[in-house]
Structure formats: structure tokens, C-alpha cells
């Protein structure tokens, strides 16, 4: 890709390095150990964390933040474990995803992945109940992902029909799930839900109610 120097944002690396997890970006010396050990490269052609770091250092802000590859990282930490410069690539990618999400919310970017919707639905469930409630999460995520309630329910049925029945028969989900008559059916709620609300409201940009 040709680099247009007049479009580079020299401040981008500072922006990343001031984000939690992005602090060690500038110590990268481009050895490519991260990319060589990354399991996703086998499944997503062209996936290259080393290059994302390089483009970030160069200030290619728009290209980096709109790169769909940001959203297929498994956060498996293989790159971080092997990096000789302790760049914490898995955390840097997390910092980039958070900047991208903020840009999308500000209307400056369109993210080509349902992952922000999933993460937000997860955080919303957590803020509401204090624990993960699988069914509630799916019911919140699928309609958002598919763009309408009906489409969402159909897609959810398609993905979950067999799995849900399997879990139901094993007593893991449904009316008798979770080892008690109600646990698998209803959200498991903690008593101090107000604390969850406070945490997300004071610290998280993602958990805030619109």
C-alpha cells in the first residue's frame, strides 16, 4: 500500500500509548515473531499483527482503525508471550479496538464486524445482573447483529437449535438447568447489582446506557 505522508497522523502512536494496554507500542523492533506464532494467520489470509503495529507507529490511523483484522484476534496471548520486546501485542490490539469503537460511536468510522455489538451486549448483561446469563446475552445480541428482532430470533434459532436442545437435555440450560429448577431459566443475579452499575458508569465507556 502506498503511504501518503500528508495523511499520516504523527500523534496516533501517542494516542495508542495513552490507552490502557497500549503503553509499550513504541518498543517494537519489527522482528515478526508475533505474526509467525499467531494461530489466526492459518485461517485469515494476510492477518499480520506485526504490520498493524508498524502502521500504527507510522501514524496510519484510518487504515489501522478500519482494518477488519482487529476483530478476529483471539486475545490468545501467544504473540505477547513470544515478543522479545514485551510489546504486549494482544493488549495493544485491545487498545486499538477501543479507539475504533469510540470513533464508530462518534460517527467517524463503520466497523465491519459484529464483535463490538457482542462485547457491548455482554457488558450490558453484566452491568444488569453481575453475572453472565447466556440466554439473555443471545437475546440481546442476535437482534442487534441481524438488524431486527425477527431476523435476530431466526438467526439465533438456526445457531442454537441443536446446541440449546443438547444443553437442555444435559440439564445445563432451560427450566431444569444449572442444577436447580430456576437457575438455567432465569438470569443468575448478584445481590450487589448497584456496584456493577457504578463500576461501568464510573470507569467504562462501553457499559453506559444510551
Amino acid at each position: 500500500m502506498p503511504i501518503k505522508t500528508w495523511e499520516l497522523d504523527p500523534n496516533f502512536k501517542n494516542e495508542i500509548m495513552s490507552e490502557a494496554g497500549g503503553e509499550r507500542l513504541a518498543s517494537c523492533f519489527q522482528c515478526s515473531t508475533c505474526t509467525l506464532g499467531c494461530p489466526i494467520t492459518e485461517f485469515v489470509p494476510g492477518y499480520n499483527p506485526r504490520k498493524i503495529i508498524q502502521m500504527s507507529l507510522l501514524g496510519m490511523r484510518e487504515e489501522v482503525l478500519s482494518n477488519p483484522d482487529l476483530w478476529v484476534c483471539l486475545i490468545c496471548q501467544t504473540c505477547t508471550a513470544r515478543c522479545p520486546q514485551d510489546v504486549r501485542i494482544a493488549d495493544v490490539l485491545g487498545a486499538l479496538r477501543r479507539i475504533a469503537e469510540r470513533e464508530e460511536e462518534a460517527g467517524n468510522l463503520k466497523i465491519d464486524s459484529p464483535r463490538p455489538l457482542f462485547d457491548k451486549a455482554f457488558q450490558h448483561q453484566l452491568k444488569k445482573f453481575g453475572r453472565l446469563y447466556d440466554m439473555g446475552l443471545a437475546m440481546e445480541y442476535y437482534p442487534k447483529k441481524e438488524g431486527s428482532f425477527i431476523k435476530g430470533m431466526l438467526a439465533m434459532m438456526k445457531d442454537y437449535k441443536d446446541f440449546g436442545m443438547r444443553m437442555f437435555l444435559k440439564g445445563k440450560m432451560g427450566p431444569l438447568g444449572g442444577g436447580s429448577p430456576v437457575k438455567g431459566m432465569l438470569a443468575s443475579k448478584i445481590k450487589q447489582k448497584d456496584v456493577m452499575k457504578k463500576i461501568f458508569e464510573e470507569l467504562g465507556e462501553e457499559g453506559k446506557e444510551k
Partner: protein
Amino acid sequence: MSVDKLAYYPGCPSEATAIEQHMSTEAVFEKLGVELVEVEDWNCCGAAEVEDPRVVYALNARNLAIAEKEDLDIVTPCSICYYNLERSNRALKADEALRTKLKGIDSSLDYNGTIKTKHVLDVFVNDIGLDEISSKLEKKVNVKVAPYYGCYIGRPPETAFDDPDNPVLMDKLIELIGGEIVPNFNYMKTVCCGGPLMMTRGDIAFDMARKILDVAKNAGADCISLACPLCGMMLDGKQADIEKALDVTIGMPVVYITQLLGLALGIEPNKLGLNKNAVDTKEILGKVV
């Protein structure tokens, strides 16, 4: 070194998809004479979906503070919960300003940094110890096992408690109880199962999980053993979906290491939730002598 009482953090899947891991963890610790005190009113650790480290630290500060009141170290059977608990514990211990800030948000987040966080595998091998466990074994679990460790046991480096390339804690337990480690599986031990992409790129997640199942099968394993509920959901819970989507037959039993250990300790299979794994485990039960 021996332990007799620990705070227990079950994690969200303990109430649903990984209930068998929860059941077997409780049963095994009971048999080993270690009392588990469930963290009262525990909240979710943030899993992989809460990406902001500050929120993760706050969520885990509450759980750590509850255990600290009881003056107990925390143990969890879930690798992701362990990673979040341990990295939060480290951050909170090192940063007084962070502790003060969290305390200001709510008094329940007032944690002084006096306890340790552990994964069950670490406690079994390094705290309770193989000799102690060996003295309590009642049966031989004569199975060929592909020990699958996944992501957060050997990495990232600060929170890891086993080797990043060739972890061995589970291998040691399997050999102790009379099992055999299959050859040619080592290189898959720590390759991610694909779980984090299940809801957003299910196609990639299926391919990744299938590869692990295939390698275990080709290595001649009777089962895969695990120490994380997300791996359990991918390799066991979704195995039939993977077979259907990719038009393959696998039929590989997948069990938690606590279930195998429980069998060797002479615990009733149903008490270990062995009737709750998605892929049938009867063949394994036939090899317990």
C-alpha cells in the same frame, strides 16, 4: 506444603455449560480434605468481552475483597477467570492509587492486596502435591489422554504458572492416576480453541476447534482433558455442531481434569457430572479399574 481451606470462585459457566466442572471441582477438593468457601455473592470476572483493563480490575477487586475478608486465597477452575483475577490482583497490589480510586467508587471494592489467586491445576500439583494426592487414590484411570491446556495457563508470562510451549501440570496428574499421555499431541496443547470468536466468527472458531479434535483423534486418544470451561464449550458442547457443519465424524469424549482426578479418587461418576458432558463418557468409565 499443604492447604486446608480456600475461597472458591466458580465463574459464570459453573451455573450452566460447565456445571460438570463445578461439580467435580467441589467433589475433588472435598475428597482431598480441602474446604472450599464459595466467594459470597461473587460477580463475573469480565471474561474476554470486557476489554478495558480498569473495568476488569474493578470487577475483580470486589471478588478479591470478599475473599480477603475471610483471609483466604482464591482458587478457580476456569483459566479465563484465573487470568482476570491474577492480573487484577497484581495490578491492585502494585498500585495504591488504583486501590484508592476503586474504594472511592464503592466500599465493596476496598481491597488491600493481601491474598493470592490460583488456578486449580496449580493448587493440585504445587500446593497439595502429587504425593498427598497419590496417598488418596483409590482407582486406576487407564485411559489414553490428549491433555489440552489452551491459552491462559502458560501465558501471558506474568500470570502464567506452567511452561508456555509445553505445559506439564495436567500431564503429571494424568500419569499419577494411571493414564497415558498420547504421543504427537504436544504441539496442540496450547493452541487456542477458537472459543473467543464463537459468537462473531463461528466459521473460524469451528475450524480451530476441529483441528484440536482431529489431532487428538489421530493421536489415538480416548479423551481430551481440559482445565477451562470455554474450551469445554467449544470442544465438547459444540462438537456435534462442528461435525454437522463440517460434515465430519469425530466422537471424541472431552472431560475436565477434575473429572478424571475424581474418578481416580473413587468418587461416584454422577457426582462428578460425567453424565453431563455432551459427548458420551461411558467408554472412559469402563476404563476405571
